[in-house]
């Protein structure tokens, strides 16, 4: 099983036994109440320099209230997996939190381009699928997985992929290294106090992130009872022992949608976009993050009940999201 070629990109070296030791020492296997404020969750479980992954994006079911808290707490030097991201990458870069990005896809603009130009940002090119697949490797507890894409491109050269001779077929096959983020963030529709969580609708890789991450923060639209979870185990996406913190965050996906609950606030999305174009993103950050102490205060003072009700009412598609 010869290595035929190797990409030259930087990657967090896979370390399945290291992950195991970490899990053994840090993860609570008893079902205990993990409900805490976003302030406490981010303060305890997001560290400067962490590799961070999250499911979905600022458009839909992203953990956006946690992004804002991360910016509020001035976390620094995060390395993120921007798989299927949107302007969330820009938001986190504008907030000064991120200096390295594994790129799948992101919305780009002045903030990203300037940060690259000024060497405040380092990119490593992957793909949405490759990052999700690296998280699958991390979730399976193995050091790498073979795959059928990435080969033959500059993505391969730029990344941590390898081309090897498959010992079974003798044919070339690409390997990618497992990704075990230091911290994972997932916004869910419902969970109980222990962290048993339900996600409705399609999603990029919530199970993979939940299993692969060393630390896991769940933010949730709603907290339900453990009994309700146990009455319908089919609906559970994430079991409790994977979870370190549960943050109650109704409208936690704002300004994005949470399918089946509320639609995205296009006004806010445009406000963000224009602020970037006009170079006034600092004012946006001040308004929605630094000038308010919490997600709740932001909803109350910056968004307002009338808009929240409208966003809920405009989500006319409810079927299937239960």
């Amino acid at each position, binding site marked *: 099983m010869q290595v035929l070629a190797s990409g030259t990109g930087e990657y967090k070296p896979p370390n399945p036994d290291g992950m195991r030791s970490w899990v053994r020492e840090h993860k609570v296997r008893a079902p205990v109440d993990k409900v805490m404020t976003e302030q406490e969750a981010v303060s305890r479980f997001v560290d400067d320099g962490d590799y961070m992954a999250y499911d*979905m994006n600022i*458009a*839909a*079911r992203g953990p956006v209230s946690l992004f804002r808290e991360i910016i509020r707490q001035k976390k620094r030097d995060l390395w993120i997996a*921007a798989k*299927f991201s*949107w302007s969330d990458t820009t938001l986190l870069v504008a907030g000064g939190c991120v200096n390295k990005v594994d*790129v*799948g*896809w*992101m*919305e*780009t603009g002045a903030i*990203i*381009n300037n940060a690259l130009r000024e*060497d405040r940002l*380092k*990119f490593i*090119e*992957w*793909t*949405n*699928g490759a990052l*999700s*697949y690296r998280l*699958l490797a991390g979730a399976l507890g193995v050091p790498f997985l073979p*795959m*059928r*894409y*990435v*080969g*033959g*491109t*500059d*993505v391969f050269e*730029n990344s941590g992929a390898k*081309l090897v001779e498959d010992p079974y077929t003798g*044919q*070339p*096959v*690409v390997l990618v290294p497992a990704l075990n983020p230091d911290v994972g963030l997932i916004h869910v529709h419902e969970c109980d106090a222990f962290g048993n969580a339900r996600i409705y*609708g*399609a*999603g*990029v*890789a*919530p*199970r*993979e992130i939940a299993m692969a991450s060393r630390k896991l923060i769940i933010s949730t639209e709603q907290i339900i009872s453990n009994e309700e979870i146990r009455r319908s185990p089919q609906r559970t996406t994430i079991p409790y022992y994977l979870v370190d913190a549960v943050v109650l965050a109704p409208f936690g996906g704002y300004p*994005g*949608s949470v*399918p*089946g609950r509320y*639609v*995205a606030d*296009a006004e806010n*999305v445009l406000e963000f976009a224009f602020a970037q174009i006009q170079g006034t993103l600092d004012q946006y950050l001040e308004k929605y993050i630094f000038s308010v102490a919490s997600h709740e205060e932001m909803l109350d003072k910056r968004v307002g009940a009338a808009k929240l009700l409208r966003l809920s009412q405009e989500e006319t*598609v409810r079927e*299937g*999201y239960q």
Partner: protein
Amino acid sequence: MTELTFTDLEQNICTIANMIEEDKLYFVQMAGPPLFAILLAKRMRTPEVGFLVEEGAIAPSPSFPLPRMMLGAARSHYRSVAWEGMNIVDAHAALGYVDWGILSAVQIDKFGNFNSTFLGKDYDHPDRRFGGPGGANEIASCCWGTIIMTKLEKRKFVERVDFVSSPGYIDGSPGAREKVGLPANTGPYRVVTERALFGFDEKTHMMRLDAIAPWITLDEVLERMDFKPLIAEPLGVMPPPTEEELTIIRAEIDPGGYTLNRGEWLTVTV
């Protein structure tokens, strides 16, 4: 003879919509013209055609009007047959279930390798950074064929792309894709632009001009390319959008004006 006004993206949407077959399975880039192409086909000719999107919705029947933030929205995933995740739908493609991928590209070379990462200078300090490979790499690798849409411009049809985000026929040599681990007998099928339609020569894997719009000359097409493609004989004619297609796009599929508000306006007499 009537005058027709449309954008380059509308032309591409209509061209691709007319390629859609009901008994094939598609992998479609979400939230833009590739999605609109299959939605137009579903609305007009192939109501039952199934397609996948990267974030895991299988065979959705999107509910109009789509929201401005359509990515991952409930209306975009409406009445799917299943809601899965990215690794599952990518695996369906890896297993050979997906006939065609529909994608857009920033820049493409004569072997169909394409770029959605950056233009100008180098990777770490580009002139302009784009979104990245997204899901296009896996789609272009694992679907049996890919239909790539872009605009016919000299800086887009180049001898060598600034960055190969997604694979075409690599260097065009026989088995080039297989040698780098990609599934056998796959590759780009069509490159669709507002002015010309391209295929690929089966042997050399060189891009081949198959058809041009009725309102442009061959020379004008070639002037808009940095390399010279093969030219099919006879050279076909690429029909412009129909009134009906444009009405459906503008009134039902994209009333928010995503395609109308972007791109180049073309007015032609047909």
